[in-house]
């Protein structure tokens, strides 16, 4: 479970994140929805402890991620915005490297790696160097290494960005499976369909502020739009001043 309270981060004059508060519950998929530049990535970076908030509190399973980032990292699995791979290593070696850094060894590591490779349908390419991988194969490799330690909380920054249909499906399957296993899944997206297809709860963020949250139905009710996309546009203030 993840709880964020009035998070602030400023870059010079720009308030990138300006008082964000929300929670993401166990066994639920929470979507962080917002247009480009809304503060999604910055929020997630603070959440996964690589960026220090100017103000605010972050609790990951009750651990304060600001004062004890090391402790929080054990409970987090992260697919970051930049998810670079090592071109000369194979997919399996990527997963094993991160597994070993998490302290998993021997048979445990082998079983877990095989399990992930099978789950992501990567067995055929497991021992190939990632240099020649497609975008989808790279994303799956990065996802597999992010959850090798079976973390309670999984954060995904725009996981389906630029993926083809089959890879998008594989990622969605994983998200549903993680939810079924009782994990907390928080992912960001600027694509309405993506969020509506997967999420139990949606947090809409624009210009660093939360502008709406709740289930898809809540959002429709709040805005008076039947169409979720219209609701999103209305909430994020993207709509030009309509002459009604």
């Amino acid at each position: 479970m993840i709880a964020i309270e009035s998070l602030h981060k400023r870059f010079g004059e720009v308030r990138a994140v300006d008082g964000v508060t929300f929670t993401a519950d166990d066994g639920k998929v929470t979507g962080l929805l917002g247009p480009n530049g809304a503060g999604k990535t910055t929020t997630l970076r603070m959440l996964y402890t690589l960026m220090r908030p100017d103000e605010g509190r972050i609790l990951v399973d009750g651990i304060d991620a600001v004062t004890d980032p090391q402790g929080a990292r054990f409970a987090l699995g992260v697919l970051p915005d930049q998810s670079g791979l090592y071109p000369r290593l194979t997919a399996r070696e990527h997963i094993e490297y991160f597994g070993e850094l998490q302290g998993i060894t021997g048979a445990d590591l082998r079983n877990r790696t095989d399990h992930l490779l099978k789950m992501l349908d990567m067995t055929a390419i497991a021992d190939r160097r990632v240099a020649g991988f497609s975008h989808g194969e790279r994303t799956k490799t990065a996802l597999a290494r992010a959850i090798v330690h079976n973390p309670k909380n999984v954060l995904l920054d725009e996981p389906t960005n630029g993926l083809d249909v089959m890879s998008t499906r594989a990622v969605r399957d994983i998200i549903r499976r993680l939810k079924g296993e009782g994990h907390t899944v928080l992912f960001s997206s600027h694509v309405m369909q993506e969020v509506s297809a997967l999420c139990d709860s949606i947090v809409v963020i624009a210009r660093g502020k939360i502008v709406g949250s709740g289930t898809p139905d809540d959002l429709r009710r709040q805005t008076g739009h039947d169409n979720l996309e219209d609701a999103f546009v209305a909430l994020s203030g993207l709509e030009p001043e309509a002459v009604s």
Partner: protein
Amino acid sequence: MTTKSTPMTQTIVVIKKELKDWSRDRRSILTVLMSSLLAPGIIFFMFNSMASRQRSVEDITVPVVGASHAPAFVNWLKQQAGVTIADGPQDPEEAVRSRREDVVVVIDEDFAKNFAASRPAQVRLISDGSSQNARPKIQRVRQMLQRYGGEIGSLRLIARGISPVVAQAVQVEDVEVSSAQQRAAMILGFIPLFVMLSAFTGAMGISTDSTAGERERGSFEALLVNPAPRITIASGKWLAGTITAWATVAITATLLFTMFRYLPLQDLGIRFRLGTPELLGTMAVVLPLAPLIVAIQMYVATFAKSFKEAQSYLSFLMMAQMIPGMMATMNPTGTKAWMYYVPWIGQQTLLTDVLGNKPIAPLVFVVVGVVNVALAVAAVRATAGLLHREKIIFGR
């Protein structure tokens, strides 16, 4: 899931990964091979060309025009070690001008007449002073001619009951400073520099790839989300780099020392020994330096956003490192005690001592090593500090 990761095991995990990654990088492997072959190659080539030039002076063929005018003189020339007499060309001056011959001796037709009358008999030495390569040969022929003249003159004085020493008012002793031996010694002075530079080039692969390379690929973010402290990750990368630097030093030094058995040192009149004790001494000096080189390289490369940027930073660093070495080689006067304790300069000085068979107190080795490792640890800590900066983690 079981979590029994300690900083120790995490460091080893990072070392293993970096070494595996490095060993698959053809570019860094090639760099190591090239750099360790380069130094022995250059020295071997320079020595051989010097020795062959030296040999060309020892075994000379002298074309003589008019040998029949002075058979006794020509016979004397033939008896000189390494001298062969050949028939001179038709037009000696043209032959020298067109560089077909380095030097031609022309004996005057009145040689015998003048010689018998104890008048100076004429021998012309035709040469081209602008030809660098011919100069040692010309000098040698001139010396032979002068010696012959001197010997005959002495005999004539003795025949007249006068000691030849009386005629020698001044005795000139030649002390040649820029001899081949001196130049050879200067080349040998570069050996410490070559061995130390091999540590530098050997480390460059991991130093750049594991820092600037991670930034360029955007893989730092994912790596640092792992519950491994920054110092653990930095240490693993540092130790992996150190291992490759050590391997390169070992290969380079072994090649250099093997090559030395095949150098024509005798031909140059050099008594210089490079054996197992010198090899071990060299290792004892350079191996503790490698961790510091790697740590500094990594610290610098972490500021670079890309592999290429890092490489250009490091080539500046390399040039900066070469300056004290060059100065020590060019100006080998005073070795001051403080020099031993300054990294890089200290190794240079120590290596010169090792190769010159100067006894060194073991304590100096220890102190120099400890100073280096301590500085290296400080640099690794500084690098770990950089890994906390948001600009470094996210800045591409």
